[in-house]
């Protein structure tokens, strides 16, 4: 690996006042500074300072939790960019999708990323859950974190489902119509719950607005909160479950 | 080690960039498919001449105004052509009309035969037809001319880049 010039450049960068104002610690070379790097950082301090070496092995987790979270990050970034071009109105929403495809630079790419990541996130969330189950990761003291995980699974499904309506094309409209029709099978309150979800008896502009607000504001906020709890509890519940066979070679 | 690495990176990028260089194949359009209207060749009914919008407008005007004396059969049956002396040329008679310039034809139609030293039996249409309608008539007569009217410019091709 290249040393010398690049390292010297990094050294001089670290010596600047600006760098020092941002990163108060020196290079993370000792365990102390490494610990500081973790708990001195808002984002990293959700992680424990130390982790078991075994839990780092790919076969232990397949990094499914991390990947799910990273997909959430990708979705947030692309989602915010997409929001710049989108009006939750009928039929403007559909026209915005057309403009995204035909006019906006990288618009198709942006939408592809968002859609793919969304589908992938549903997959990884399920996979993550099954994996944790098989490894017995729900066992005490992780019970509560398992419940948080189940809620996050439902949130992911709702996020994906509410996003499904936003293109306002035939696929979206009928998928949501079919899905919400199931709600009316609920005894007594089914019809009312559906009315509440759609803001009407039919999938229409009100439903689009509701789904948009849920998709872009409510559900992501709740998800961020619960993801934070989820991470936090992994640390507080004593780290990832490690099994004897993870020792590997 | 790092050479192989660079090569691998390069190859991956190459593969990833491949979809960006999609080709746009332009199939040669069939004249009859893209035509606005068609007209059977007067001398050979098996053959069909494709007409564009302008020529089709000319065809419509021809069959309203001119067919009576410039064709041997009319929508109403017999033609007046044989009644007129000197006999008017058939509109598709390339031997006579291909040699005439666009301007000359425009003058004959709009000002009448007498204006260009021909028979006054050809009435002026300058106050009946608009200039672009006369232009369409000329385009039509060029399209169905037999022998074929040779255009001075090269025929249109679909755009194929440089």
């Amino acid at each position: 690996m290249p040393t010398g010039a690049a390292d010297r450049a990094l050294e001089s960068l670290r010596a600047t006042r600006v760098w020092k104002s941002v990163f108060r610690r020196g290079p993370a070379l000792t365990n102390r500074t490494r610990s500081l790097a973790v708990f001195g950082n808002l984002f990293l301090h959700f992680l424990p300072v130390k982790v078991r070496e075994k839990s780092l092995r790919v076969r232990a987790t397949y990094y499914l939790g991390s990947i799910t979270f990273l997909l959430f990050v990708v979705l947030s970034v692309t989602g915010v960019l997409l929001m710049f071009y989108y009006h939750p109105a009928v039929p403007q929403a559909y026209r915005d999708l057309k403009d995204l495809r035909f006019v906006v630079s990288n618009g198709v790419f942006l939408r592809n990323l968002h859609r793919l990541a969304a589908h992938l996130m549903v997959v990884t969330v399920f996979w993550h859950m099954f994996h944790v189950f098989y490894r017995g990761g729900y066992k005490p003291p992780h019970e509560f974190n398992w419940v948080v995980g189940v809620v996050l699974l439902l949130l992911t499904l709702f996020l994906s489902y509410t996003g499904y309506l936003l293109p306002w094309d035939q696929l979206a409209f009928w998928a949501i119509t079919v899905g919400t029709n199931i709600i009316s099978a609920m005894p007594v309150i089914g019809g009312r719950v559906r009315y509440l979800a759609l803001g009407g008896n039919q999938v229409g502009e009100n439903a689009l607005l509701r789904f948009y607000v849920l998709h872009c504001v409510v559900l992501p906020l709740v998800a961020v909160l619960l993801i934070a709890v989820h991470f936090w509890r992994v640390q507080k519940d004593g780290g990832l479950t490690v099994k004897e066979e993870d020792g590997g070679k | 080690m790092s050479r192989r690495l660079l090569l691998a990176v390069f190859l991956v990028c190459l593969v990833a960039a491949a979809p960006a260089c999609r080709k746009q194949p332009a199939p040669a359009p069939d004249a009859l498919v893209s035509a606005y209207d068609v007209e059977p060749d007067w001398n050979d009914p098996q053959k069909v001449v494709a007409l564009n919008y302008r020529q089709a407008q000319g065809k419509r005007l021809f069959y309203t105004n001119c067919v009576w004396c410039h064709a041997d059969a009319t929508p109403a049956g017999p033609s007046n052509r044989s009644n007129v002396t000197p006999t008017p040329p058939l509109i598709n008679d390339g031997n006579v009309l291909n040699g005439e310039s666009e301007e000359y034809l425009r003058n004959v139609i709009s000002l009448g035969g007498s204006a260009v030293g021909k028979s006054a039996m050809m009435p002026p249409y300058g106050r009946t037809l608009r200039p672009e309608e006369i232009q369409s008539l000329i385009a039509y007569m060029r399209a169905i001319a037999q022998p074929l009217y040779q255009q001075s410019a090269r025929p249109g091709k679909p755009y194929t880049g440089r």
Partner: protein
Amino acid sequence: MAENKKIETGFSSDVLKDPKRIVFVTKKTSAKVTGDAGRQVMTFPHLVLREAIAFQILVIAIVLVSLLWDAPLEQLANPLLTPNPAKAPWYFLGLQELLHYFPPFVAGILIPTLVVIALVGIPYFNINIHGGPLWAKRRTSQLRMVLIVLSLLMIFLAIFLAWTVFVPSAAIAFLLLYSYSVPASQTGWRGFLRSRTVSWWVMTWFIAVAITLTLVGTFFRGPGWEWEWPWVSHGG
């Protein structure tokens, strides 16, 4: 939770009287906060670096797929024009497939609710706390129990003609019964099957059914929710 344990926990209810707190940590009540479990390493940089690599590989993968595959966009929504079949998003197609067999209340409300309750309840019902294999003890009575449960399930599915549920259930049931006959000394996948726990079997059955239903709903259902091979395009 350990209701039938004959252990006196030293947990006094009167802290003023007896300020000592002693907790017996048995295997059954273990929180599994095992102190050993191998070496520990610093999160930074070991975990952070690995996560960074995971993130980069993930983004590379989805970017490449996004470049090659365009997200579908169909015609403008038209409430008067019902596609046949109208399908929900893929992750609900398993439910939609169930709706084909069972009444809407059962398939649309009851089953999903039960699944969610079951998932939430898993850690609180001592499931798999022992980690003991199904066929480890009391094999005959276990087998009797398993056979009763399996036949009830199969009869239920057969009554509703829910054969897309029946087939994966039957496959798992077959494996389950097969694992009974595997001798204890076996290794490899047979031994693996033999040593599975009840909860493993239940979850595997659930996953198998869910995946089958989702696949069938996504790829094998055509107009009128009739069976259709994905490579045979229907007219119109």
